[in-house]
């Protein structure tokens, strides 16, 4: 990470929040991996540090984990940053009622209000319960999980 990089500045006094860094694809950007337990606290630090705009929130199932990628930017300038956290499927005891395990995580909508639209979609399509947010699961299975087979329901 380059000196003077805004993310380095933000985490100068809390470097333990960043578990790992890697390059984002072929781009110049870095991906900063976070512990999902510190998600809310890290989000507040980032917002206070100038990343006040959650440009995108993307989720993906990789093996037995759901990986969440937060694309951030500052509304004043062109600084961007990519943060990532993952949660193991079935980390919450109990089933969704459709034979699949929920995943539970913190909502960051209190930090970035624009997160609400992304989170509500992820919640319903990936089966994620957001702490403190009423979740609705009124369909059979979670379509964007890899175990969901179109027209075939849930893969055994």
């Amino acid at each position, binding site marked *: 990470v380059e000196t003077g990089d805004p993310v380095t500045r933000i985490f100068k006094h809390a470097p333990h929040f960043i578990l790992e860094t890697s390059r984002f*694809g072929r781009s110049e950007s870095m991906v900063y991996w976070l512990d999902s337990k510190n998600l809310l606290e890290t989000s507040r630090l980032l917002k206070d540090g100038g990343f006040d705009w959650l440009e995108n929130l993307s989720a993906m199932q990789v093996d037995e984990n759901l990986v969440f990628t937060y694309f951030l930017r500052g*509304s004043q300038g062109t600084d961007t940053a990519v943060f990532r956290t993952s949660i193991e499927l079935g980390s919450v005891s109990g089933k969704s009622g459709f034979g699949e395990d929920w995943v539970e995580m913190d909502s960051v909508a209190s930090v970035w209000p624009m997160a609400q*639209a992304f989170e509500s979609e992820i919640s319903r399509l990936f089966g994620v319960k957001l702490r403190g947010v009423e979740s609705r699961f009124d369909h059979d299975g979670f379509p964007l999980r890899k175990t969901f087979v179109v027209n075939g329901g849930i893969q055994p």
Partner: protein
Amino acid sequence: VRFEVLKTDPSTWEIGPYHPALPGPMKLRLQSDGELIISARYEIGYLHRGLEKCLELHPWIASIAYVDHLEPEASAFGEAAYCLAVEEIGKIPVPPRAKVIRIILLELSRVSSHLSAVAKMASSVGTETAVHYVLRDRERILDLFELLSGARFSLNFMRFGGVASDITEGFIERVLEVCEMVRHRLKEYNDLFTFNHAFLDRTRAVGVLDRKTVLDFGITGPNARASGVGFDVRKQHPYLGYEELDFETPLGREDEGMLGDAHGRFMVRLREIAQSIEILKHISEGIPPGDFASIRVERDFRLPRGEAFSRIESPRGLMGCHLVSDGGATPARAQFTTPSSAVVGALPLLLKGARTEDLAPILSSLDISVAEADR
């Protein structure tokens, strides 16, 4: 004189999912006190097509036809965001000629989409003459799409590393003709209704979107620019060579009414049409020679492992595509962020305090695409 005050409870309206005042299939649950909306909730998902899941299930070569449906009225933008992400992962070069053809297509699509927004706005305030005039002119742009790609909607024209075919003979001349026609028509629209007192009464100081709401909800595009937030991906993160083009990003003006009101959004779109016309005239005059594509995509096309996040400026604002490839025959994940999702999220805040008769002009001035919000 004694007046009798009739006490009434707030009434509840449920509008949709299909209603002419709505931008598409969605539900609005309003509580109103007389003519004043005191709370608003929305429900979307009626147009959810599982587009992102479909992309995971089909080979790379078939995906362009799917991303076309992200926003059917301006399908070229979904294609562009997706192709840029694929090209970044695969390090696929795009020839200069193909870049220019893409910009021509994108700017024509922007003009077409904004004309459609102008027609919706005119319809919402009952200016039927303007609707017909504007849609008549938009047809000329759809003719150009047909000449270029063979289709008027769902163009399926961009390809990884370029475009599907070269421009046809006489295409550039017709683009320039249409540019000139639209430039003249903008004056006609102004005469017809932009400064018409009835139109001003229905749109000024109505549906005011303040700067804080824009930033809180991540609203972009003409809706944000009308509120003074000058973010434009073509300027901040240029792609396809936009950095070499000289153009301005129109912003809302306080001297024309209230910053961020419905009229301001309408004016920004009209000015953006004029800017796109200038871009089109400029690049059409110097289209470089060379190939229209760097590779030919076959059925067994595969991308190496990797990921990319592309950003483009669609007619409604920031459109992004997060694409992940695991080296397989289909994308491992394709996810889109669309400007309409942000606007829909802000509706409860925006509609609270509005009058019921202003509902249709407010919604049409936001130019929401339910198709891209639902995906």
